[in-house]
């Protein structure tokens, strides 16, 4: 165990890479979730169809395949990404597809009377969603987004397969260098668990803050 812990510099590096991947991926996923999720309820058929194509494409094929496609196949068409960017794009686009369903579901869960009320106030479409519908939809989204965030963190481990030096990658290096097997993996499992538990706590706090003073039902998972 001491032998593994003596590799702490690269373990810290790996942890940082994993956290960066998770944060950047989460930002991208969040943006995509809102764009695609709101596009799903657009009044224009063409936009809805585009959103469905995106959703089915990224939800339907495997994340690992998407990652390899972005990193190994796209360069053949002259589109180059470094490994970290490719990892962020793949993680973000994949989780964003799942997130769009969360956004759509939450927006649709806001009652009809809210739409009517904003119409009565003569709000424009943009104002209606910006000031009335989405603020009420966000608290419904948060718990499920929390689950997706954990899925995203777990997905970043897969990015080690496209040569990103994240925690999983570092564990491999330590395994090869020390010929120990159990210890390096045990250490990174614990690190992943700690990161995930911190994320769960943060999401819980955010959920509490948003639901404070509001009498809403928080949708549980699934």
């Amino acid at each position, binding site marked *: 165990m001491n032998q593994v812990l003596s590799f702490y510099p690269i373990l810290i590096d790996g942890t940082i890479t994993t956290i960066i991947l998770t944060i950047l991926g989460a930002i991208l996923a969040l943006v995509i979730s809102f764009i695609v999720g709101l596009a799903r309820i657009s009044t224009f058929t063409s936009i809805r169809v585009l959103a469905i194509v995106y959703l089915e494409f990224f939800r339907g094929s495997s994340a690992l395949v998407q990652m*390899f496609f972005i990193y*190994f196949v796209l360069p053949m068409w002259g589109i180059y990404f470094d490994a970290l960017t490719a990892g962020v794009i793949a993680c973000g686009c994949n989780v964003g597809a799942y997130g769009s369903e969360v956004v759509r579901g939450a927006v649709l869960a806001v009652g009809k009377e809210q739409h009517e009320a904003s119409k009565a106030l003569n709000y424009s479409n943009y104002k209606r969603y910006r000031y009335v519908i989405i603020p009420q939809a966000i608290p419904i989204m948060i718990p499920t987004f929390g689950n997706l965030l954990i899925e995203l963190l*777990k997905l970043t481990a897969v990015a080690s397969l496209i040569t990103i030096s994240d925690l999983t990658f570092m*564990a491999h290096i330590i395994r090869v260098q020390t010929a120990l097997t159990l210890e390096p993996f045990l250490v990174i499992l614990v690190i992943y668990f700690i990161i995930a538990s911190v994320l769960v706590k943060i999401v819980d706090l955010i959920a509490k803050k948003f639901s404070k003073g509001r009498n809403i039902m928080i949708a549980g998972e699934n």
Partner: protein
Amino acid sequence: MYWSWDVAFDVLPQLARGVIVTIEATIVASLLAYVLGLGIAIIKMSKSKFIRVFVYWITEFVRRTPILVQLYVVFYVLPDYGIFLEAFTCGVLVLGIHFSTYTSEVFRAGIDNVSKGQWEAAKSLNYNTYQAWKNVILPQAIPPMIPPLANYLITMFKETPLLAAITVVELFRAADQYSNSHYKYLEPMTLVGVFFLIVSIPSAILAMKLEKKFKSNKV
């Protein structure tokens, strides 16, 4: 780089063999996930608080750590302790255990949905625990569970490419092997993606239909 049908047809036989392994892995892993998940759900309803908390943290640990790392643990560590398993067995074990923590939530929710009155009714009919489960609780609890369980089946199917990392030659690794030996990346990887789309989109639609069907039955 343009699409070449010659390459596509050349790689197909290898991919076909990979598809079989992928499907086998999905089926075996999902069966394991369902059985284990039900077991975990039942243990989680135990009267002892210690057992409940203990199982809760174990399942949370499995849920909050990446499948890939769990695969490595089983694949690389077990042989050190004299347990030699085939790569395929390792992969199926890990997938099954990982997703059993998800399916257990489905089972628990399904069982919780059966009202307390049903337990009391079973008791008043002098059923023992086994009979109550078999004749009263499970027949009511299972139908609403089917759509989410089907969704996890699709999810597991999409996670099988991870088994490639521990040398299981399933669809993804079959394509990767071809790519590496022929320096053709476009066709194999695209075909793999298309195959996943072909299988998972119709099954997702089917799962959605199931969901609607069971919802309308319930009311």
